[in-house]
């Protein structure tokens, strides 16, 4: 990786945290949808 890509730490860090939040939200939503579907099917 070039040094240039290591520059501007704050925006990179914010981007990293934001992506983790987006991925976590997607995981939680998918799990909720799966649980809801199983409750409907088996309930």
């Amino acid at each position, binding site marked *: *990786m070039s040094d240039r890509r290591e520059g501007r730490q704050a925006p990179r860090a914010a981007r990293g945290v934001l*992506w983790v939040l987006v991925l976590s939200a997607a995981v939680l939503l998918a799990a909720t949808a*799966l649980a809801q579907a199983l409750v409907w099917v088996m309930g």
Partner: protein
Amino acid sequence: MSIILRPGADDLRLIGFYLGKVLLGLGLVLFVPAVVALSFAEWNDATAFVIGASACLIVGGLTDARLATRRPLTWAHGMVIVALAWLLGAVFAAIPLYLTGRFSDPLAALFEAMSALTTTGMSVIHDLDHTSLSMDTYRHLLQFAGGQGIVIVVLSLFAAGGARIASLYVSEGREDHILPSFVRTSRFIFKVAATFLVTMTAALFVALLTAGFAPGRAFYHAINLFFSSFDTGGFSVMQTSMIYYHSLAVEVVVMVTMLAGTMSFALHFALWNRDPREVLRHLETRTLAITTTAFFTIICFGLLRAGTYDATEPLIRKGFFTLISAVSSTGHQVNVGTTYLTDWGTLAPAALVGAMAIGGMASSTAGGIKGMRVGLAAKTLVHDIRRILLPESALVVTTYHAGKRRILRDDTARAATTLLLLFIATYLVGAVVALAYGQWDITETLFEAVSVGSNIGISIGVVSPEMPSALMATYTVMMWLGRLEFVAVFALAGYLFSLARGRARG
């Protein structure tokens, strides 16, 4: 027949020198709880932490002064140092724990220290709810030190140059070279940790305030929760772990923190550099997505069929949270341990055991077999089946994505399956040792053995301050083996053998 050479005095001097650096680092860590203890007039604990810090600094300082060397490290040295660092680190970390008087005997203190440094999170402390602030700080800080790789941290800070610590880095089980220099890689790892420390502690602080905590207590719980969640440790300030908080907001933030902690630093690097597609393409992400979906389906099916829960909310807050706690190898609990045995039926705990065995991602603080190895083992199986089905003359090539498109090589496949088998053998040994006592059945012993061997920390009730000493010792070794993924420990055993039986040099 190859000749085994006995390591010379120079080799032992080199190993001793770097182990001294580790002890110096541990001594510095011990200063934090010592200052907390002095600030809050916890005199008994302050004495214990000052004695512990002094022991580390004296021994570390002496080795630094007497064994100083500029000889470069070899792979063998690196492996032996890593294996001994976790062992010696646990022994020295256990000194202040035992001196506080909250552990039955020195072995219990060693178990707790190893549990912290390997980010397992099993605890045998007496009366956790009434421990001092400094003791909580120390236990959680130890997890942070262990999780971030105490060896690479200490050596990055003290060693003269990056290249000299290269061999240590790889034997920690972190195989990805995110950046060309190890010191720069270490800095990136700490930048990620520091970023999440600020953001997630702030989020937890707000969540705890809304749950009714006073600001001081909210901050204290938030920072400890961050340490134990991001470093996938699972220690808790309260005996009842996450049940204590009764807060959906806290559970959600902890879940996000656990997911961030179990994500490999290579994927963090991709996200920091505008490459989120790497996360979706990576073999490890895909493997964990498939296995976690399958395990959650089984858990929901099992819990609904057993009549444990009948709505979505408890399936998420109890079932999914526990699954993420297992997959990330954190070990935070939203259920009392015996619930898995009495209320969860048979399917759901079995799925949980499977998730704990696999654990999280390589190149993270997570434990277990790791999604990467399971993915590679599955690819190997498909590769072999294709080779059987296709004509003998056909060239069978299997590829996978991990940073870039890679060809599945025989040595990669063999390494993944060997480690997988070693983990399974360790789980079975742990289960059999516990079974020998006749106090627990196979479900309980296997559950606990997988949780210990994978450095998870979810307990079904076998681990307690009153557990038999031999079992406690077995679990301590299992945590050490699991954290170092066997290789460094085997290297240490080989080194000891060559010390005893090898031929003298020259």
